[in-house]
């Protein structure tokens, strides 16, 4: 691995994103807009806003980074730039780490803006430092990014890549405990939810929102999220082939 190639890749991804201000505006603006909408919808139910608002705020980055990364990576494969990179003195890890760095930075920005809106303007209250929420949001963004990276190998077209969002993300949203507590689900669904990474991402945010103490469960959640991120990145590295048919 070389730091030079990693940083160059991160810089290049940021250059690409900067050339697309509308995407940046959507990435940064949409989560805040959704928080406003949530506040309006739950106007008379402040408690519900509190315990849905914080988890949603922390899960947004997972969803948007999943989408952005899978499309960017698919483009990299289909335009031949990935093949060009694979003939150059750059390691696969440099490419992946460069992506991680760029999207991680973007996630920090996204998390900071939506947190400022949620906590500053809309009256969310976490019981815990807001930095914990932003930290979880960034970890979730990297989870979304790594899932997007590895799954993009399965998509041949951008239509397919976009459909992975409902296919991969929606079931996890339904099962993670946000809508119905997992203990109230059928045992089969609960068992499935146990192996889905978003369950742990949600659990950490839920505890930050509702528990007075951050126990060892949150640590476990974070370890699972980071672990799945690393496994997905490793799978992503396997899908970056120097030789193809």
């Amino acid at each position, binding site marked *: 691995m070389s730091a*030079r190639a990693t940083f160059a890749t991160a810089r290049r991804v940021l250059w690409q994103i900067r050339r697309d201000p509308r995407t940046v505006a959507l990435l940064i603006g949409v989560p805040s807009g959704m928080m406003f909408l949530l506040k309006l919808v739950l106007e008379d139910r402040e408690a519900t806003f509190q315990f849905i608002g914080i988890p949603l705020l922390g899960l947004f980055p997972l969803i948007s980074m999943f989408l952005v990364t899978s499309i960017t990576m698919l483009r990299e494969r289909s335009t031949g730039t990935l093949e060009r990179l694979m003939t150059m003195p750059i390691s696969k890890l440099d490419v992946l780490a460069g992506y991680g760095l760029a999207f991680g930075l973007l996630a920090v920005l996204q998390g900071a803006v939506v947190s400022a809106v949620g906590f500053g303007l809309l009256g969310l209250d976490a019981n815990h430092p807001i930095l914990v929420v932003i930290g979880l949001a960034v970890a979730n963004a990297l989870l979304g990014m790594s899932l997007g990276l590895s799954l993009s190998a399965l998509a041949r077209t951008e239509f397919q890549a976009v459909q992975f969002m409902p296919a991969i993300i929606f079931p996890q949203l339904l099962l993670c405990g946000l809508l119905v507590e997992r203990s109230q689900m059928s045992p089969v669904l609960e068992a499935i939810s146990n192996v889905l990474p978003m369950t742990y991402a949600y659990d950490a945010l839920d505890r930050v929102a509702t528990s007075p103490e951050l126990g060892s469960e949150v640590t476990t959640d974070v370890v699972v999220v980071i672990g799945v991120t690393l496994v997905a990145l490793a799978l992503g590295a396997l899908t970056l082939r120097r030789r193809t048919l």
Partner: protein
Amino acid sequence: MAPAIDIRDLHVIRGGRPVLHGIDVAVEPGQVTGLLGPSGCGKTTLMRSIVGVQIVRSGTVRVLGSDAGSPSLRPRVGYVTQAPSTYADLSVRENLRYFAAIEGADGERVDSVLDAVDLTSLADRVVRMLSDGQRARVSLATALLGEPDVLVLDEPTVGLDPVLRRDLWQMFRELASSGATLLVSSHVMDEASECDMLILMREGRIVAVEEPDALRSRTGETDLGQAFLKLIEEPA
């Protein structure tokens, strides 16, 4: 001198169909070698095997004494694909600066490469806005950044105007005289006369490897295009 590229009994299968059936060929160093043949005859597959991105069935491909695609070759071999592989949403200079960082080339090198492919005036344009020919030159410029010892160019002059084509061929000649080995595929026969050596392919096999003059005298044709047709249409 040892050949820069040495291929022995290379077989490649793509999509269940054999594309290369036992290629044996050597490319001499410091020369411009033309790779010619009808489209679909396996030129691109052969080039991909040389730069080490093609999964091959059997045979050996050695480049500069190492196995094709080995890490030590990556800084020494440049490859330009037929479809320009560039980041369409970056400017010309941003594209080159990124690849330069990977190759360990500096800003000065970026400027001189831009100049060599006549893109200095377009350096800050976003690649998406360029014409096909201009994009092809960005792709070519990228391959020149690392000053490779072996340059594999797949149809680099398609869609370029005659003046630019002449200038690029002059550049290829200069690169070769400074010691680089160039393998250039083309189906434009007037470019064949610019080459030191020609490799003619048909249906995944090598038909002939010879100098342009030898090809002319053997076939009795002064025009290389006619000479090539004569060889191609001969019963195998």
